């Protein structure tokens, strides 16, 4: 049997923290004269705090070391509980979202997906806007912490490649991991501050700058306007966001190492090379396509392609153009870029670059082995041989991603959506990007018109994608609950 006590305890702590967080938008709304929304936030905070503290009190004390099953269960439940309780203010505020809508929006927030069901953001109360940004920001740092400290130990989808050197040493690992995590959190905070300052200097209001910085560094992509970044019509803002979207998709651990005196590792890292390479290629090809085939002036083509391609690859989901109308090749290209994602160890979603590296190296070794059956070819990652278990896990991840994608797309089409909406919606949710393709959920559309069933499917997809598939799907294995 799985001991539930420590899990409930940890979730109680999480909920109490969430309740404290809700106080911020409450204060902001109160100060700017939205009394009704302020009291909604306050009541939701009170309720969340009550549930959180009572779970802590009811299960407190004792040793709370997690074993593997408990870690899995906690990871799944933590995101689910966070989404459910953060949906409360969304459901009861002035926007009057339905349960499905509020949960969808909250899940999109904590998983740093930019899919939104709210129209009329420009006139929404500041508290709600701030709440959405806060969800993404904390969801993002939660993801980074998980990718650094938890997923490698759970050996999910090849993440064991990123085991901290000290992590194998049992109990002593904890202080070291905590130290690393606080360093990473500091860097995350600094990046956000710098981004916000830059955006403010480029002409945003202070409030917009802070919110967009939070949504950028977490690669979340919630905006304060229905037209996303297109609203600002400012090349300066777009350039700043491009830079910070890319910076936020690199492994945060490398920043920490760079700060501690080995900045070279940042540039020597294979994953970083591949990521920058993919982005550069995609932007170049897309610019050429827009310039030559769609007849846009070169500068406009470069600006639109750079911003939107970066936004899609990093899984942020900001938009400045309706890329739906860019033609067949662009639409297909963006669909594939969606699932690529950023680097492992960042807040970015998707399959992630290192998995493509591992698969490429393995496939390369395989083909060489076909040519010389008796030769010895060892695939390598960052100059170290890739263990067989990692290669298998990565390829298994890839297969599982394809299956989850197919199932989700089938489920969405069962609710009556057209093929393009189903396929791109599934890809976008699993990769935590945000906008899909097509008229309904494309960059100029909104998820609001989808049937409720589709919203639940997509919420599930976002959760599964965020937790690297295995972490959630393992809970559906009968063997998990046995013994």
């Amino acid at each position, binding site marked *: 049997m799985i001991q539930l006590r420590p899990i409930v305890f940890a979730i109680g702590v999480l909920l109490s923290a969430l309740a404290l967080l809700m106080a911020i938008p409450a204060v902001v709304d109160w100060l700017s004269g939205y009394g009704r929304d302020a009291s909604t936030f306050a009541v939701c905070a009170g309720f969340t705090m009550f549930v959180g503290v009572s779970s802590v009190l009811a299960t407190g004390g004792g040793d709370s070391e997690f074993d*593997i099953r408990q870690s899995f269960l906690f990871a799944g439940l933590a995101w689910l509980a966070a989404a459910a309780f953060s949906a409360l203010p969304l459901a009861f505020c002035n926007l009057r979202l339905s349960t499905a809508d509020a949960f969808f929006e909250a899940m999109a927030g904590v998983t740093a997906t930019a899919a939104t069901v709210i129209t009329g953001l420009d006139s929404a109360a500041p508290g709600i806007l701030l709440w959405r940004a806060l969800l993404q920001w904390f969801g993002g740092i939660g993801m980074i912490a998980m990718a650094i400290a938890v997923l490698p130990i759970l050996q999910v989808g090849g993440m064991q490649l990123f085991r901290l050197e000290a992590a194998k040493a049992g109990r002593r690992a904890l202080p070291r991991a905590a130290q690393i995590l606080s360093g990473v959190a500091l860097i995350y905070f600094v990046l956000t501050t710098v981004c916000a300052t830059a955006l403010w200097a480029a002409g945003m209001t202070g409030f917009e700058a802070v919110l967009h910085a939070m949504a950028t560094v977490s690669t979340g992509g919630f905006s304060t306007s229905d037209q996303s970044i297109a609203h600002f019509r400012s090349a300066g803002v777009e350039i700043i966001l491009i830079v910070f979207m890319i910076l936020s998709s690199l492994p945060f651990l490398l920043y920490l190492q760079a700060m501690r005196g080995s900045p070279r590792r940042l540039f020597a890292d294979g994953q970083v090379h591949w990521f920058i390479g993919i982005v550069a290629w995609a932007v170049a090809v897309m610019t050429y*396509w827009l310039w030559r085939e769609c007849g846009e002036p070169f500068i406009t083509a470069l600006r639109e392609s750079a911003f939107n391609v970066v936004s899609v690859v990093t899984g942020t989901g900001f938009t400045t153009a309706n890329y739906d109308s860019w033609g067949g090749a662009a639409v297909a290209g963006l669909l594939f870029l969606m699932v690529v994602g950023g680097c492992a160890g960042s807040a970015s979603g998707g399959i992630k670059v290192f998995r493509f590296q591992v698969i490429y190296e393995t*496939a390369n070794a395989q*083909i060489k082995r076909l040519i010389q059956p008796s030769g010895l070819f060892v695939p390598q990652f960052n100059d170290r041989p890739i263990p067989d278990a990692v290669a298998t896990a990565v*390829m298994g991840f890839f297969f599982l991603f394809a299956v989850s994608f197919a199932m989700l797309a089938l489920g969405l*089409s069962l609710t*009556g959506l057209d*093929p*393009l909406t189903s396929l791109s919606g599934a890809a976008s949710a699993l990769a935590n990007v945000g906008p899909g393709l097509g008229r309904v959920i494309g960059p100029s559309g909104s998820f609001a018109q989808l049937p409720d069933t589709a919203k639940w499917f997509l919420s599930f997809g976002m959760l599964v994608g965020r937790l690297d598939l295995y972490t959630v799907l*393992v809970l559906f294995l009968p063997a998990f609950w046995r013994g």
Partner: protein
Amino acid sequence: MIHFRPVFFVIGILLTTLAVVMILPALVDGAAGNPDWTVFAASAALSLFIGVSLIIGNWAPHFNMDVREAFLLTTLAWLVAAGAGALPMAFSGLHLSFTDAYFEAMAGITTTGSTVIVGLDAAPPGILLWRALLQLLGGAGFMVMAIAVLPFLRVGGMQLFRMESSDRSEKALPRVAEVASGITVIYLALVAIDATALWIAGMSGFEAVCHAMTTLATGGFSTTDQSIGHFHSAAIEGITTVFMLLGGMPFVLYLQAVQGKPRQFFRNSQIRGFLGLYAAAVGTLVLWQWLSGGESLAQALRDVSFSVASIMTTTGFTTVDYQTWGGFAVVTILFLTVVGACTGSTAGGIKIYRLEVLYSTAKAQFHRIVQPHGLFVPHYGGKPIPDQVASSVMGFFFLFALTFATLSLALGASGLDFLTSLSGVATAMANVGPGLGAIIGPSGNFAGLPDSAKWFLSLGMLLGRLELYGVFVLLWPEFWRG
């Protein structure tokens, strides 16, 4: 160094065979009084000339073929066969462009069944017969390749199908030859039975033979523009469904059944998986069709069971436009397109056995995640899957996805819309036939595509037929070195 002599020698034999087969349509056209017979005769003479010169020019008493030459040979063989097959089409009364003729021949020899010809109903019998013959030969060639060549090349996990005795190379050849000829006989016998059944069900003799050939080859060329829908006959659809399914199952098992081990057939996990998936897909889609009120239950069952069999076995016959069934049906059919049928049959696609290996491996991984110290070995057909096989299957899956993405981008760049690009590549790589969308959908035709798109699709058909690795290996610099 790669020795080209044995490669060219075998290509010569292939061309000579094709030349001999070309005489059949020449005779048929001659008998029907169609002037196309001269085209066939001339093409046959040209192929024969090149073939015989290659044989004579590269003759040697002793041939030794290693892995590289085998790889080179497989790719070249299909390229050359498509080229020779295109000759009569390019010069016939249909006046196809070179691109169109090559596309049509490649769709024939890879048993894909996508067509660029409009007006099949009025086409001379020689061309129709030639298209069916190309598929018949392509199907047989593919099965022989799957049995005799691919397992030795260890392509995409095919080593799992190495025959027990084949590790000792001396004895292997006679045994492989025996199995290959047994399978060919069964293949031809099934074609004959199918043709008879179709004839009894009301087709003309010529139509019956042509359709039987393309059914068992899971090719899907028809003698009319409306494919099987033309005949408006439930009996013909039923017969074709059965024989498409038969064409999608491993022929080695038929051989074993004939040799007195019929139980093997139902114990085979690939067949179970295939029939199970087929039943599940048919059940879901019938329910969907029926509940959405589009059709009566009987009509839905008839349309769905035929269309799903046609897509899953990668045949590509059509009776109705399944795109009118709504978004769910379209997405289902898009995914079923790439799934394909069993290894060891004439069907294409990723294939059931690979999906079973992937499923089994993924399951073992899940268990390992829950119990990191437990020992979980993935099994296939009651036997443990060697690590090598699992990783080549997964590598295949990845290459398939990567090729799929690249080719659909290329199609998009030649100006096609999203659904046409995606489904066109899927249908080409899985050797199915029709795609989705207004242009290449079940009621459409590939004639309207730009030339560049036709070349990309031809490449996709070849890649799919040679299980990707067969072609990709040639692109590695290491292949040509040392």
